[in-house]
């Protein structure tokens, strides 16, 4: 997705030009995925510069470091309307070049607005939806609105998703901003105020933040903030936009993320760092869960059905969650991919609970499903890693994973912490309905999971690195499992696809003979994940793959009989089968990471992918 940054400051607040600070902040937003960059800075002169390309490649040509000033905006663009070319990069300006706008999101009514503005004589230079914003502001100023009123009016006529930051030369000491659906966060520094799509952008400078809500707009100066709420959508008339002032004082939060947490911390890639952070993230998450969740457990107990909605990696965590709920909590439970969920919502009602799992809490498909569920009267429980993000805000209950910021696009530590949270919730429900003995065993093993994860990670890193040298030359792979092993196989295959670009397909091992096995030939890699009791069934699946010459990689518990018929073996420590999935995924994450590195790809920035998908 696009990343935006806005900074307003006082002269001499930083030791380096404002352009260099904007560049740094944009670098911290690179993980969101982008194809073009641009910035505008107001100092002695007003400059707007933009280009297609990666920040490091175009920084010199754009001359970030050459420009200093007291107000600036910057943007990394991920093309939605119009191809990734220079003219479509942000910031966009009005006809006079006095208003510069950066925007993240998609405007629904831009075509009609563009047509109206064009008829009034405005000249459009790009194919983007964004460009209507500066022209609208210009139009309202022409009609006699004060600059800030013109901005508010312009925002009120927009429909769709937006996070917007605006420099207007007629109001040079202010940065205007507005948010609807797309994320926007204010960072309050000592001598500067920041606006950004995500916290890591400015974390180096401040950890004091306000998370803006939908429909909020306002402006920041170097020493103050005004936030207003838009009361109703506006039309292209001459009435002032209707707003009311918001008291934000209680919403200022001080984060305990340190800047180094958001940086690579000495690893060559964020993904490897995040893989190694899992023991700590699991420990923090499990410790955090001891807090009050009785209300949630009550609601789960009373519920009729438990429906999971999630996308990508979170969906795989949800599949496990549904299995846990069925087997431990004895609730009818099922997981749905969020973009598909709307077709399964007709029989969801007030007595049901929908659990929405989303790392970012902003995943648009999941948010849409949540809204649909609420319309049907269901209660919603959000599981997210980002405090105060959209999905938690719209839900009745929320549990946060405490994984810390995850910057690598491929989710790793948020997956294992999500699974830990869902297992813990299922255990809590199970506790209330009896069956103490097995629960105690699982709880003990869950408490030990950080330690076990740590030993798995360091034990197999070298082995996996050498294995990746073989795997890097493969074009296809199967990932198979049964029961709890299926979601793990799916997650392992997804990692391999998304960062190493190897076509990896996962399905329940029992399905082999119903078709997929036709693809297996000599040396075809097949990865088996065995969790525990299904071992006997898997044995025949491995045999049938072996008979066709497949190259078998097996992840199973210590002493498993499957190892004798496998080519490559990864021994997992003995843990309860409910806990085992958290450990079994670790070698698969590393396998994907090292294969991507061996193939010469950057695992942190997979092509065509963005960390938070906010476009439907």
């Amino acid at each position: 997705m696009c990343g935006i940054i806005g900074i307003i400051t006082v002269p001499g607040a930083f030791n380096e030009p404002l352009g260099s600070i904007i560049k740094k902040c944009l670098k911290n937003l690179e993980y969101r995925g982008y194809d073009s960059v641009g910035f505008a800075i107001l100092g002695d002169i007003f400059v707007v510069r933009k280009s297609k390309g990666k920040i490091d490649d175009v920084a010199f040509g754009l001359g970030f470091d050459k420009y200093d000033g007291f107000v600036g905006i910057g943007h990394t663009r991920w093309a939605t309307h119009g191809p990734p070319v220079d003219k479509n990069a942000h910031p966009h300006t009005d006809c006079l070049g006095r208003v510069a706008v950066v925007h993240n999101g998609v405007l629904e009514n831009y075509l009609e607005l563009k047509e109206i503005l064009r008829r009034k004589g405005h000249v459009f230079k790009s194919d983007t939806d964004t460009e209507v914003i500066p022209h609208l502001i210009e139009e309202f100023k022409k009609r006699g609105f004060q600059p800030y009123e013109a901005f508010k009016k312009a925002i009120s006529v927009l429909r769709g998703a937006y996070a917007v930051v605006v420099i207007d030369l007629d109001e040079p000491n202010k940065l205007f901003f507005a948010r609807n659906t797309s994320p926007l966060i204010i960072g309050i520094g000592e001598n500067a105020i920041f606006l950004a799509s995500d916290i890591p952008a400015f974390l180096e400078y401040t950890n004091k933040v306000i998370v803006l809500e939908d429909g909020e707009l306002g402006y920041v100066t170097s020493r103050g903030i005004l936030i207003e709420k838009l009361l109703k959508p506006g039309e292209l008339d001459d009435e002032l936009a209707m707003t009311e002032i918001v008291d934000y004082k209680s919403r200022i939060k001080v984060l305990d993320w340190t800047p180094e947490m958001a940086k690579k911390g000495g690893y060559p890639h964020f993904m490897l760092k995040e893989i190694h952070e899992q023991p700590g993230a699991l420990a923090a998450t499990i410790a955090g869960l001891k807090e009050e969740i009785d209300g949630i457990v009550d609601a789960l107990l009373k519920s009729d059905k438990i429906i999971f909605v999630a996308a990508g990696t979170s969906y795989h965590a949800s599949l496990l969650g549904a299995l846990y709920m069925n087997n431990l909590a004895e609730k009818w439970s099922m997981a749905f991919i969020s973009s598909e969920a709307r077709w399964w919502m007709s029989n969801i009602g007030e007595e049901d609970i929908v659990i929405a799992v989303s790392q970012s809490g902003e995943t648009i498909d999941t948010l849409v499903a949540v809204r649909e569920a609420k319309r049907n009267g269901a209660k919603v429980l959000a599981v997210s890693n980002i405090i105060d993000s959209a999905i938690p805000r719209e839900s009745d209950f929320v549990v946060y994973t405490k994984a810390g910021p995850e910057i690598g696009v491929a989710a790793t530590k948020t997956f294992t912490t999500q699974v830990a949270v869902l297992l813990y919730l299922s255990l809590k429900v199970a506790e209330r309905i009896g069956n103490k003995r097995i629960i105690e065993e699982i709880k003990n093993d869950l408490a030990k999971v950080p330690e076990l994860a740590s030993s798995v990670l360091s034990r197999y890193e070298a082995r996996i690195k050498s294995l990746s040298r073989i795997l890097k030359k493969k074009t296809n792979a199967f990932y198979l499992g049964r029961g709890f092993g299926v979601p793990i196989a799916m997650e392992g295959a997804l990692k391999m696809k998304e960062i190493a670009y190897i076509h990896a397909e996962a399905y329940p091992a029992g399905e082999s003979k119903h078709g997929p096995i036709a693809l297996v030939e000599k040396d075809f890699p097949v990865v088996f994940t065995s969790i525990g009791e299904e071992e006997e069934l898997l044995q025949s699946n491995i045999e049938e793959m072996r008979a066709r010459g497949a190259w078998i990689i097996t992840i199973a518990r210590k002493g498993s009989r499957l190892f004798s018929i496998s080519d490559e073996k990864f021994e997992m420590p003995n843990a309860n089968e409910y806990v085992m999935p958290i450990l079994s995924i670790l070698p698969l994450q590393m396998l994907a990471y090292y294969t991507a590195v061996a193939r010469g790809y950057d695992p942190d920035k997979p092509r065509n992918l963005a960390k938070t998908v906010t476009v439907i």
Partner: protein
Amino acid sequence: MIDKAIVLAGGMGKRIMNITGGSPKVLLKVAGKSIIDRVMENLINVGIKDVSIITDRTAVIEDVIHHYKKYASISVVEQKEADLIGALLTAAELIDSDTLLVYGDILIKSEALRDILLSQELYRKSVMLLIPEEDVREYGAVTITEDNYVNTFIEKPGEKIEEAYAYGGIMTVNEEFAKLLIETESFEDTINNLAKERKIRAFIWSGWWVDIGYPWDLLKALHYLLSELEATKISAKAKIADTAIIEGPVIIDDEAEIDHYAIIKGPVYIGKRVYVGNHSLIRPFTSLEKGSIIHAYSEVFWSSLQEEALIGRGSFIAFSVLGSKAVIEPNVLTKVVVSEEMRGIRPIEVIKNHKERYLKLGAFISAGRRIRAGTILEPGAMV
């Protein structure tokens, strides 16, 4: 950011002595540049301004590094004792602030150094380079804590330790390190003492890394360095016959001569004044250093010819290293398939058909040595 570095470039390099012929091993050539050249370039690349090189052969080192003096202040210091601890103790006396301590026989990408320095900047603690290697016995074994601090260090592990990482020969050190080292006169104790107080961050490097200890390590290094070649560069002063076939990427340096019907399959490095005779076949991952000669009808695969080495007519040389001025007379063959694990030799693993692994190793010919015509060299032979 740290801008001081100490390079330990001494030691006889006993295990690779037949190739070096007794000169310091950091002067061995890998794809056109000596090991010390590559180390110096990396340091300068990451902004190091002050380098002390510790060695037992000051004069020789002085000769090869003087042209780096325009980029950094460089001093060459003679080490007290010839062994590693001798060099470390000499280093300890030079450490008066945060310093990057680098073993001179480690080849790695400069990104790794840059990230180590960044990590030091971030945590304000010593940072130790760790490599996930399957067998840590050769390198020193390091275990780490859950939150990535160094836990324990064993300098000479007797056996494989599965959970351990290999020490990568690069770390940042400070005065406290120097003081402890002088007190204990033991690298292992110094690291363990600091580790106990959580003073050393682990930095895990997932990219390539080679410690040049044995002759075959040169072959590993060639693989990594030549794999990074992207384009073919042929000097205008090289003489290429019009029937020669060159498949890139290849570097051909000044005054090299490729004769008629020779085939060069990249990635390959061909140095200054090298001669490749008629109908010869030069296969990937081969580096022919300055002045080496391949006579007609010979085939060379994945080998390193140090300066002025010569291969006579009709020979097959693969997975081999020829010391400087070594001479292979006509019709010499290397046997390369290693059938069983040979003592003390770690062969090169070649993966065919995406799965089958073969272990291969050729011969290692001493500097200046002459191999009689018609000889058949056994895998792993050191002559």
